[in-house]
C-alpha cells in the first residue's frame, strides 16, 4: 500500500514536471493488435541504433497466424537495387543517388527474434517481395513462426535489432550538425486484416517511391539513451529523463493507440511549448527559423480548434512539431502519430502562408491516417485528399478565402483556389483517377490524389451545405476512428447519410459521384454557348376565314421577344445545376437543370431581352474544369479589357527599357 502510494506520488510529480502529459487511454481507443517496447542506444557518431525489446502481437482474427511480416523500410536506402530507389530513377529531390559514399547509406537488421517459448526464429526469417518480385529489395521481412498465434492469443516476441540512418534521401535520415530524423526505423509489423477477397492476411507492402505507410494500432514504450546535448522530440509523452554518466541522457517516451512511433534529434533546436486545452504542444525549431515559431503554433491551435468543432476531438495529450534546419528539409513536411515535421525558410514573408498551410496539412493527418488509419499505400486519396480538403477549409477560414495562401505585394490567392487549380489545371485531368495503389502512379499524382479528391469533397460541401457536410464527416470519423477504413467504408457512410437526407441535391445515393470521380476519370464542364433575342411577331400566314376560305395575316411586332439560352454539358459528370437568367429589366429567372442531356435550351416569350445567363452562379460545382464558360452576357464589360491592355503596354515598355540597357 505504502509502495503504491509512493509510486502514485512519484508518477504525479513526474507528469507535473513534464507539463502533465498523460498518454494513457482507459479504456483503450483501439484494439491494440501490435505494441512495442524498445530500449534504444543511440550511436550519434555513426547515426546508428541498437535496440532490445519486445513486439507484442494480439491476434484479433478468427484464424491462426503462422508468420509475421515486418516493414524494414530503412533497407530501401541500403543500395540502389531497392524498389524505392529503382522507382526514383536514381534521382530524388535533385540528388544523384549514385554518387553516394559508403557512409551515406542506411540499413536495418533483425539481430535476434525469439517467440514466447524462447525459440529462436532468426535463422528462418527471410526477405520477401510480395509486390514486384524484385530480389534486390529488402523492405519486407517474413518470419515463419514455430508455433502459430491462435485466435484471441497475445504473443510476446523478444526482438533485438540494429539500424543505421542514411544521409537523408527522403524522410528518414541525417544531415549536417547531427540533425537526424528517425522514422520507420524499427522492424514494424504490417497489418493483419481481412482483405477484400475475404481472406485474413498480412497487409505489408514493399516501400515504393510513391507510397508512404500503413501500420496497426498499439502502444509504444520507447526508451532512448543518447548524448545529452541532443534536443529530442518524439511521438507521445516524455515520461522520464535521466542523466547518465559519459554525457548521456536516458529518455522514456510513451504513447498509446497509435500506428507508429517517430523521433528526431538535433543539438541546436530551440523549444517552444504551449498548451491548447488538454494538448501539450511542443515545437522544435532551429534558431534561424524562430521568427516562424508563433506562426506554426497559431496555425496548430487554429487547426485543433477547427477539427474539434467540425470533425471530432483530438484525444492525444501531446503534439510535437519539428521544423528541420534547411539542410535537413528532405526530412520535413511529413506526418507521424502525434508528431509532425514541418519546413520553412529563413525570413519567408508573412504574406506567403506556406508555413501555416504546411503545419495545418500535417496536423490534419492526425485525423486522416493516424486515427482514421486508412491504407496510404493502397488508397492514398483517403488521407491526402481529405487532409487537403480540410487544409483548405482551415486556411481559408482563418486567413481569408481569396487571400488565405498568398497575400503579398498586391497578389492574392486562396488555399482552396490553389488546390482546385492543381486538379483543373492539369494538362489532362482525365489521365488518372484517385482510387488505386500508390505504386501504380508516377510522380505527377498530386493533382489526382490530393486535389481531385479535395475538389470533390468541396463540391459535396457546397451542394449539401456546411452543416450537412460536417454531419456526414463526423459520422465517418465516429464510425471509423482507431480502425482501418477503406474507400468503400467512406462510400457507405456517405450513402447512409444521403439516404437519411434524400432531399439533398445529389439524391439518395452518391455512388454515381464516387464512381465518376474517385474510381473513374469523368470530368465536369458546363458551358453557355448562346443567348438569343428575336423580335416576337404575331403569327403570319394563311388562316381560316370561317367561310371555307383563307385569309392572309401579316405578322406584326408584339413589342416583345422570343428569347432563349443554349447550355451544354461538355463533361461526362452529370450534376443537377441551377441556372440564373437575367433580363434587361433586371428580372432574374432561376431554372433547375438536371444536366442529363448534353444540350439544354431554355426559351421564353418576354417583354425584355435576356442580358446574361449564369450556370451554377454560386460556383458550387467546383469540379467544373472551366468556370469562365459558365456564364455569358450580351453587354460585356470592357473596362477590364482596357485595364489589362494598358498594363500590357506598361510592362512591355519596361521590358524594352531593360533590353535597351544591354544595347
Amino acid at each position, binding site marked *: 500500500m505504502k509502495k503504491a502510494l509512493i509510486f502514485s506520488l512519484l508518477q504525479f510529480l513526474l507528469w507535473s514536471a513534464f507539463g502533465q502529459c498523460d498518454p494513457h487511454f482507459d479504456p483503450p481507443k483501439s484494439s491494440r493488435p501490435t505494441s512495442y517496447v524498445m530500449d534504444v542506444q543511440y550511436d550519434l557518431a555513426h547515426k546508428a541504433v541498437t535496440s532490445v525489446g519486445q513486439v507484442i502481437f494480439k491476434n484479433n482474427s478468427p484464424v491462426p497466424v503462422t508468420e509475421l511480416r515486418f516493414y524494414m523500410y530503412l533497407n530501401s536506402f541500403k543500395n540502389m537495387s531497392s524498389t524505392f530507389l529503382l522507382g526514383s530513377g536514381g534521382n530524388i529531390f535533385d540528388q544523384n543517388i549514385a554518387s553516394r559514399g559508403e557512409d551515406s547509406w542506411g540499413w536495418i537488421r533483425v539481430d535476434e527474434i525469439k517467440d514466447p517459448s524462447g525459440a529462436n526464429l532468426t535463422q528462418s526469417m527471410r526477405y520477401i517481395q510480395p509486390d514486384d518480385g524484385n530480389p534486390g529489395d529488402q523492405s519486407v521481412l517474413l518470419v515463419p513462426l514455430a508455433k502459430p498465434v491462435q485466435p484471441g492469443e497475445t504473443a510476446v516476441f523478444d526482438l533485438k535489432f540494429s539500424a543505421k540512418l542514411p544521409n537523408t534521401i527522403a524522410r528518414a535520415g541525417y544531415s549536417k550538425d547531427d540533425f537526424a530524423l528517425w522514422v520507420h526505423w524499427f522492424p514494424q509489423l504490417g497489418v493483419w486484416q481481412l482483405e477484400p477477397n475475404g481472406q485474413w492476411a498480412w497487409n505489408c507492402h514493399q516501400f515504393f517511391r510513391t507510397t508512404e505507410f500503413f501500420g496497426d494500432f498499439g502502444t509504444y514504450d520507447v526508451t532512448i539513451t543518447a548524448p545529452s546535448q541532443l534536443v529530442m522530440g518524439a511521438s507521445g509523452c516524455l515520461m522520464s529523463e535521466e542523466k547518465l554518466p559519459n554525457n548521456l541522457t536516458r529518455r522514456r517516451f510513451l504513447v498509446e493507440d497509435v500506428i507508429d512511433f517517430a523521433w528526431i534529434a538535433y543539438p541546436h533546436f530551440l523549444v517552444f511549448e504551449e498548451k491548447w486545452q488538454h494538448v501539450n504542444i511542443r515545437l522544435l525549431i532551429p534558431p534561424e527559423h524562430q521568427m516562424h515559431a508563433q506562426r506554426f503554433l497559431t496555425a496548430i491551435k487554429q487547426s485543433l480548434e477547427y477539427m474539434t468543432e467540425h470533425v471530432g476531438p483530438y484525444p492525444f495529450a501531446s503534439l510535437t512539431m519539428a521544423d528541420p534546419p534547411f539542410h535537413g528539409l528532405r526530412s520535413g513536411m511529413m506526418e507521424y502519430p502525434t508528431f509532425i515535421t514541418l519546413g520553412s525558410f529563413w525570413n519567408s514573408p508573412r504574406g506567403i502562408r506556406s508555413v501555416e498551410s504546411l503545419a495545418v496539412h500535417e496536423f490534419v493527418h492526425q485525423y486522416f491516417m493516424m486515427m482514421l488509419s486508412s491504407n496510404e499505400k493502397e488508397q492514398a486519396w483517403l488521407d491526402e485528399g481529405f487532409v487537403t480538403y480540410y487544409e483548405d477549409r482551415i486556411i481559408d477560414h482563418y486567413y481569408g478565402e*481569396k487571400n488565405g495562401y498568398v497575400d503579398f505585394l498586391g497578389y492574392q490567392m486562396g488555399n482552396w483556389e490553389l488546390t482546385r487549380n492543381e486538379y483543373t489545371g492539369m494538362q489532362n485531368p482525365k489521365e488518372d483517377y484517385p482510387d488505386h495503389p500508390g505504386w501504380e502512379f508516377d510522380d505527377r499524382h498530386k493533382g489526382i490524389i490530393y486535389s481531385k479528391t479535395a475538389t470533390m469533397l468541396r463540391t459535396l460541401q457546397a451542394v449539401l451545405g456546411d452543416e450537412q457536410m460536417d454531419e456526414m464527416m463526423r459520422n465517418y470519423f465516429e464510425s471509423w476512428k482507431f480502425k482501418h477504413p477503406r474507400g468503400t467504408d467512406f462510400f457507405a457512410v456517405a450513402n447512409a447519410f444521403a439516404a437519411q437526407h434524400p432531399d439533398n441535391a445529389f439524391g439518395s445515393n452518391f455512388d454515381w459521384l464516387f464512381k465518376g470521380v474517385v474510381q473513374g476519370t469523368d470530368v465536369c464542364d458546363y458551358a453557355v454557348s448562346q443567348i438569343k433575342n428575336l423580335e416576337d411577331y404575331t403569327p403570319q400566314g394563311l388562316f381560316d376565314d370561317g367561310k371555307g376560305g383563307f385569309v392572309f395575316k401579316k405578322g406584326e411586332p408584339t413589342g416583345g421577344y422570343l428569347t432563349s439560352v443554349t447550355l451544354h454539358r461538355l463533361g461526362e459528370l452529370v450534376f443537377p445545376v441551377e441556372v440564373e437568367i437575367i433580363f434587361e429589366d433586371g428580372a432574374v429567372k432561376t431554372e433547375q437543370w438536371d444536366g442529363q442531356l448534353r444540350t439544354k435550351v431554355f426559351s421564353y416569350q418576354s417583354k425584355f431581352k435576356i442580358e446574361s445567363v449564369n450556370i451554377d452562379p454560386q460556383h458550387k460545382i467546383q469540379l467544373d474544369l472551366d468556370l469562365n464558360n459558365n456564364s455569358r452576357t450580351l453587354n460585356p464589360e470592357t473596362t477590364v479589357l482596357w485595364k489589362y491592355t494598358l498594363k500590357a503596354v506598361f510592362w512591355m515598355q519596361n521590358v524594352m527599357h531593360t533590353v535597351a540597357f544591354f544595347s
Partner: protein
Amino acid sequence: MLEIIKNSFLTGLRFWKIVLLVYFLQLLLAVPLAMQVWHVLEASIGSSLQINKLLAGYDHTVFSDFLKVHGGSITPLIGQLRWVLLVWALASVFINAGVLSTLVNKTPTGSAFWSGGAMYFFRFAKIAGIFLLLVLLWTGVVLLPYLGNLMGHFETMATERTVLGYLALLAVGWFIGIIYFYNAAIIARTAIVQYSLTTWQALKKGLGFNLGNFLKTTAIFLVFSGLQLLALAIYWWLEGKSGMVSQALIVVFFVLQQGLVWVRLMGRVMIVKGVSEWYLTKN
C-alpha cells in the same frame, strides 16, 4: 562631382524633346502588341461574367481557368514579343548613338539625333555586342558557379542564411561589375563621338578610364538609377494602395505608368550625360 550630377539632371530635362522621341518610338512598338491582349481577352473570356472579378484585382481562379483553356492564344504573342525585342535592341543601338551624339555635341534637335544615330550606328553596335559579351562572361564567372550548385550549398552550410548571405554578396559584386562595364561602354561611345577613335581604341579607353574613375562614374550611375527606383517604388506603393479598380483609376494609373516610363528614359539620358561629361572634363 555634384556640379556634374546637377548639370546632367538639368541637361536631361533640357533634352525632353529627344526623350519624347524615344518614348514615342517605344510606345509605337509596344501598343500594337498590347492591343492583341485586348483581342485575346475579348475573344476568350470577354463575354463571361467572371471577367468582372478582374476589375477589383487579381483573381486566381479566373486567371488559371483562362490560362488553362486559352493559354495557347497567348503563345503567339510571346513569339511576337521576342521579335519586337530584337528589333528594339537594334533600334536602341541607333537611339543610343543619336542620344549620345546630341548630348556630346550639345545639340538637342531631332535632326542631330537622326544623323548622329545613322553616323555611329555600326560602331555603337560593335560596342553593344562587346558589352553584352562582357556581361555574359562576368555572369558566367561570378554568378553561375555558385548558382549552379545552390542546392549543394544549402546542404553543406549550417543555415540557409549563410548561403543567402554569400548570394547577396555575389549579387552585389556582379552588379558592381555590370555598372563598371556599362559606364565603360558609355565612355567608349563618347570617345568615338568626341575623338573619332576606332572601336578598339575607344573600348580600351573606356575600360581604362573607368578603372581609374570607378567610384565617380558608379556614383553617377547610382544617383540616377536611384531616381528611377524611387519612382518605381512610389508607383508600386500607389498600385498597392489602390490599383486600377475603376474606369477613373485606370486612366489615372495609365498616366502614372507612362510618367514612370518617362522618368526611366530620362534617368538613362542623365546617366549617359553624367558619365560622358565626367570623362570629357577629365580629358
